[in-house]
């Protein structure tokens, strides 16, 4: 039995595309701004533009649609649910009525609008995480947050924690698997019994896992110290980020798109 085969962190899909090559900072900011707009806008036109923007983007990134759909799947139930709630609870012109349950035109349009809003939010995050590797994301977040360092915000520490977490998740997964197998070979049972019993059976897995993790953390800290690690001060970056021609072009496009959406909403 193999529990964690083909484990990949996040949902990054590696492709050689202009979107993948964009500076992660610009992608993170774009996603953030787009999400704010998606939340605030009340116009179908904005959705149309944003939808178009990301469709073109994903097409350019060469990431297959199936990955995008996979990201949407878990949220599908939520989308349908909100659609129905709005459909039946919004007062207005009745489409049809059975007993106390009635469906309204206003509900239909409101429900559709919220559903599309949710859909676009997911599309935005998918676009970001599908085309940006975890390393690039971490780098981008660190560089963006470093702006707040002056007020004492621990930007470097947060990025370091993310890196170490990313580095050790696969290692700890493997370890969990080993422990589970070892306990099963001693006759431990993780599949039967009620929830309480099953949770109790997990204890022999959790405890060694934690002890080992603390042990690892201790050794890692010593190794990092031996390699001259002393916090973020005076540190340089192996992956320097710089705005290239491509980033400038994208920056212009995104600026115009956002300006357009704002104008539509204001007028």
């Amino acid at each position, binding site marked *: 039995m193999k529990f964690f085969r083909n484990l990949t962190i996040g949902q990054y899909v590696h492709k050689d595309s202009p979107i993948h090559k964009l500076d992660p900072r610009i992608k993170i900011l774009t996603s953030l701004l787009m999400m704010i707009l998606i939340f605030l806008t009340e116009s179908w036109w904005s959705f149309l533009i944003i939808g178009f923007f990301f469709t073109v983007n994903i097409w350019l990134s060469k990431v297959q649609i199936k990955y995008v759909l996979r990201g949407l799947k878990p949220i599908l139930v939520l989308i349908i649910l909100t659609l129905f709630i709005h459909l039946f609870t919004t007062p207005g012109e009745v489409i049809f009525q059975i007993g106390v349950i009635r469906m309204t035109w206003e509900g239909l349009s409101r429900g559709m609008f919220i559903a599309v809003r949710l859909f676009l939010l997911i599309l935005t995050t998918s676009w970001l995480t599908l085309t940006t590797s975890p390393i690039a994301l971490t780098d981008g977040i660190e560089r963006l947050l470093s702006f707040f360092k002056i007020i004492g915000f621990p930007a470097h520490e947060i990025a370091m924690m993310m890196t170490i977490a990313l*580095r050790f998740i*696969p*290692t700890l997964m493997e370890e969990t698997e080993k422990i589970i197998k070892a306990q099963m070979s001693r006759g431990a049972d993780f599949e039967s019994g009620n929830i309480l019993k099953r949770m109790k059976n997990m204890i022999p897995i959790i405890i060694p896992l934690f002890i080992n993790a603390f042990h*690892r953390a201790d050794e890692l800290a010593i190794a990092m110290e031996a390699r001259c*690690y002393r916090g973020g001060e005076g540190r340089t970056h192996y992956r320097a980020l710089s705005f290239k021609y491509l980033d400038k072009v994208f920056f212009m496009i995104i600026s115009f798109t956002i300006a357009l959406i704002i104008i539509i909403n204001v007028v």
Partner: protein
Amino acid sequence: MIKFDHVTHIYTGDREHEIVSLSDINLEIHDGDFIACIGANASGKSTFAKHINGLLVPSEGNVIVDDYNTRDKKSIWEIRKKIGIVFQNPDNQLVATTIEDDVAFGLENIGIEEAEMKRRVAWALDLVGMAELKDSEPHLLSGGQKQRVVIAGALAMHTTYLVLDEPTSMLDPRGRKEVLEIVKKLNKEEDITIIYITHFMSEAAEFKKIIVLDKGRIALQGTPKDIFGRIDLLKELHLETPQITKFARLLSENGLNIPPDILTGEEMIKELCLYI
């Protein structure tokens, strides 16, 4: 040069008993040395290793690295640049999510600029034969490969000394061989001073000099032939002789004309060929 001058180290836990893990160590390690360090469990090998780069500071005495004292907080980073250290568990030494990022970790810490960093990372990975896997992730590598990446991380810092604390004890035979080959090559071709702690006697036999620790003291030091010639003393120190030496001794005791102090397979083959 690394100099241990009357170094004693005492671990003081919160409990009442203190553990003397090193006592009155005097030692000079010269540039270009190729030294193995052996000793029974809890004889103080790891404590010794951690004193070399100032991870631990002596309770008494001084450790001097190229004129820097490890007690001196200002020079500690200079010392750690000079001394690369490799520990037993490769997993717990790799920090970054890809191989090249990890090799660059130390360089980032000491503020090397980007272009120079790229150059050094490529050079170091090439030296340990891991250049092709630079984009790979640590958890996909074998133990031997991981240790080679750890070594590359030290090399990229342009270290002059490499301390390895049982780097092969968690590896399979193939990984062990890979690491030992690299260490030999670094000493020969890059002139890096090696201090190699091991509990494999067959590995220790391949070094120019061996230091034997016992209960925090240097019990013996000398060439492998000196050390492994003293079977009775080694037994007292709970240490073995290499298999091949035992074998040679047996052959010679049974009347074959073979020197009893053979240390490596090659020597043995040579002697046996002469015999035939």
